């Protein structure tokens, strides 16, 4: 009998290297990205929350941002449509472009029309379903060539909500379920025809059925706009995202095709986090 194999620690992964942050963290080459964040540093007062983050967002793709709480992924997302500017004593360095133009130099209202956002908890206005949808198009002057009813129906259909609410459009938005409210918020964001849709943990307050509906919706919506989603649910990132970026301590550790991130990530930090060995 030959020699027995020696025992070693299981799951040893000799190819993983600790991250050095001087290298480019993104492995996804995008010739003409819809959005590009370049060398973003962001400060809450004297606290530096983002460190030199660069990331491209390809058109009509879903990009997921993952990482532990406090890693900077939501802060980064909120910079993409300048929502962070509503906070006092914050400062951003770097450049964020939409179709090649720096959004930091543009009219913020126009930027937020082109880059919509959906938050963690559904936040419908205290109005009817109809009024929730039509508010944005009305204040943005988008009802010149289309009727309000047409815009409402189209937006609710795009959010896969029309069949469920078409008979109660003038009921309060609070009268529908949490999952429906979140899709209403997506429909409200879609009503102004955004080119990019940002979602900050949109399913964290929803049950699995409502979550599945939102995920199906995201996959179908990417044909109409570019999507960036922050999520703590790694299975969700694996299901819906074309590319995934991993953040840690305000740095983008790794960004690659979702298959690569979840099958064979390049960085040890990424693997430790997604396999639950973090910390």
């Amino acid at each position: 009998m030959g020699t027995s194999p020696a025992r070693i620690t299981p799951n040893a992964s000799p190819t993983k290297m600790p991250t050095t942050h001087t290298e480019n963290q993104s492995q996804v080459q995008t010739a003409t990205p819809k959005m590009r964040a370049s060398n973003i540093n962001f400060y809450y007062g004297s606290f530096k929350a983002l460190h030199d983050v660069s990331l491209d967002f390809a058109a009509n793709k879903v990009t997921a941002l993952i990482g532990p709480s406090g890693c900077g992924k939501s802060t980064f997302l909120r910079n993409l449509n300048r929502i962070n500017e509503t906070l006092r004593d914050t400062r951003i360095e770097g450049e964020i472009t939409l179709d090649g133009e720096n959004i930091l130099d543009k009219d913020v209202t126009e930027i937020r029309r082109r880059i919509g956002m959906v938050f963690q908890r559904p936040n419908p206005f205290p109005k009817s379903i109809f009024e929730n949808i039509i508010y944005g198009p009305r204040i943005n002057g988008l009802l010149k060539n289309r009727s309000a009813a047409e815009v409402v129906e189209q937006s609710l259909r795009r959010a896969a909500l029309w069949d469920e609410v078409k008979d109660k459009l003038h009921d309060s938005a609070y009268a529908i379920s949490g999952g429906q409210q979140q899709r209403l918020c997506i429909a409200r964001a879609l009503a102004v025809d955004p080119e990019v849709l940002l979602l900050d943990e949109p399913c964290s307050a929803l049950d699995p059925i409502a979550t599945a509906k939102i995920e199906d919706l995201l996959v179908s919506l990417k044909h109409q706009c570019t999507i960036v989603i922050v999520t703590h649910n790694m299975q969700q990132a694996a299901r819906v995202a074309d590319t995934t970026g991993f953040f840690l301590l305000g740095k983008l550790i790794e960004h690659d095709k979702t298959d690569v991130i979840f099958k064979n990530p390049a960085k040890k930090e990424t693997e430790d986090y997604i396999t639950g060995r973090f910390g």
Partner: protein
Amino acid sequence: MRPFEEEFELLNDTLQEMGALVAHSVHRSVLSLVEKNEDYAHQVIRDESRIDQMEIQIDDLAASLIVREQPVARDMRLVVAAIKISTDLERMGDLAVHIAERALSLMTQPPLPETVNFGELSSLAESMVLSSLDSFVKRDAQAARGVLEQDDRVDRHRNAIQHQLTQLMQKDPSTVTRAIDYLIVARKLERIGDHATNIAEDVIFLAQGVDVRRPREAQVA
């Protein structure tokens, strides 16, 4: 170590244990043939059910980890590799039994009029088994690639034995029954080499996330 890590370690350890048992069976089956040792042959046949049970145990562990942990990255690769490797090991255990059964049959018959050299074929097949298992333990993709390179040599040795036995049967038809037993043994040893090759491919996937069965340009990572 957190509880889920212990379960991945248990999967790893069970697979190593099964590998060691199969390697012993292959070795004993060869010895039963070469040394005409009945005890070894019966031991191989007895161990088959234990090997089958271990395959089921590994499948259960892997399924449980998939359901409860939804493994990704190196954990996912271990679960996928464990399911595939345990299947290959179980087949190798069966092949060892087939060799042991032929060895018992040949013990009741007179020797062939000329020597058939099984030494190189069996050594090579056993070496592939041990190297593939060792590469699994060490997560050594380079060693696993070395196993892949040995597969052609096994085929050549098996073809040489087949050629020799075919000529012998043509020359002396009274040898047909015994020669067929030897042909079967050669075929089983070659198949053991094939399964060792499969294990080596799985080890490369496990260690590096690379599927060597695919053309390079089709690989995800």
